[in-house]
């Protein structure tokens, strides 16, 4: 059987969720491996959420927010960038491949980019295989 990775995606309400929505209404093809959760801002995602996702069986976690300068809460995405980088460092020390966590800036018109990132990430995770405890 082919391994189908499970990706949990946290999408910010104002840009990235709209981008994913655009991908849907435009009928862009992307793998069904991603489970989206809408959050008000990418900075709402805490390292606790990311760790819990891995603990409960996600093979990858995808965080998406507004482009720099576009966060609706002024500087939320800057915090997200630092938070995700710190979390990746922590994951590596804990022994989880940091490639399993990905951050992208996706605006409401970037449906194509959303589909592309999901495709790329699914491929990458297929190569890595299931997460191992």
């Amino acid at each position, binding site marked *: 059987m082919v391994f189908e990775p499970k990706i949990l995606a946290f999408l910010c309400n104002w840009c990235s969720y709209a981008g994913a929505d655009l991908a849907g209404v435009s009928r862009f093809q992307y793998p069904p491996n991603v489970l989206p959760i809408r959050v008000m801002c990418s900075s709402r995602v*805490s*390292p*606790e959420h*990311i*760790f*819990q996702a*891995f*603990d409960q069986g996600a093979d990858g976690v995808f965080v998406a927010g507004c482009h*720099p*300068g576009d966060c609706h809460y002024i*500087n939320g995405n*800057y*915090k*997200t*960038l*630092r*938070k995700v*980088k*710190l*979390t990746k*460092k*922590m994951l*590596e*020390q*804990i*022994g*989880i*491949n*940091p*490639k*399993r966590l990905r951050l992208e800036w996706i605006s409401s018109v970037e449906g194509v980019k959303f589909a592309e990132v999901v495709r790329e990430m699914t491929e990458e995770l297929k*190569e*890595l*295989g299931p*997460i*191992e*405890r």
Partner: protein
Amino acid sequence: MKPKLAFYWCASCGGCEVAILDLNEALLDLVEKADIVFWPCAMDFKRSDVEKMGDNHIDFSFINGAIRTSEDVEMADLLRKKSKHVVAFGSCSCFGGIPGLANLSSKKEMLERIYDTESTEERAVFPSVKFEFDGEILTLPEFLDEAKPLEEVIKVDYFIPGCPPQTEQTLEALDSLLNGRSDKKVFASAKSVCEECPRQKEDKKLSTIKRIYEIQDDGRCLLEQGIPCLGPATAGGCGARCVKANYPCTGCNGPTQEAIDQGARMIASLASALGIEDEEKMEEKKVDELIDEIIDPVGTFYKFSLPKSILKKRWRDLDKSKTIGGRS
């Protein structure tokens, strides 16, 4: 009748036992008010003494240290059976503590490091749990796969964190437990160490991480001076005593009540506290440089709570991709 108390140590350094002795004169009051029926560190008691007791014979068993060997599990089970209440005493018992950092290595890696390296006289002789000698059978407890907090092996009624618990914390707990008016389950503050900290907070961003000897302490918040201080992620109740002594909080009181995971909470706080000039430009290189200044995030932010965290121990995921050459 006087209430009966027991004190026992699992994988611990002995500091929690000293913390009981540190009660000083109050210890004399304690033996006035209660009978100590088991305390192997300080008095001559044997395991068989406990085995002979009836169920629920002891009123409060204070157990310190992490769970690391099969003997720790047996003693925890035994004391649970013989006690009305079990108190996890100290950070190792509450969250895994310093011995919990060993969860970054596997049992095999640890045994090999100790018994099979250049520094071992006779290589690769590993301790066995059973050994026959002269017709006698000698046994040793088994070294378990990981360190665990007490709560993972038995039901725990009360928690007194701290490395070791502060005298005031212990006295408060003893007082309310022995007088039967313990409305608390955890003898720490519901608020963070920052709330007890007298240092000035200016909401200034820190643009570089420093070590304690690199700053000219000006009395401001240590985090804002660039020192990774665990105050925001740590439960108070200790009176912020490390910070008052000009040393950053290292998190011994465990996560704050609303934090599930102390390390995760700390990186969230740190990410908000960090800041660089012209951050709108989001030059990733600059952010990377700043993050690189944090040398050992797991050891620093989970110093006392790795086994109680969400991920608990080292995962084998990276080892796998190393062997197939897939590492980033």
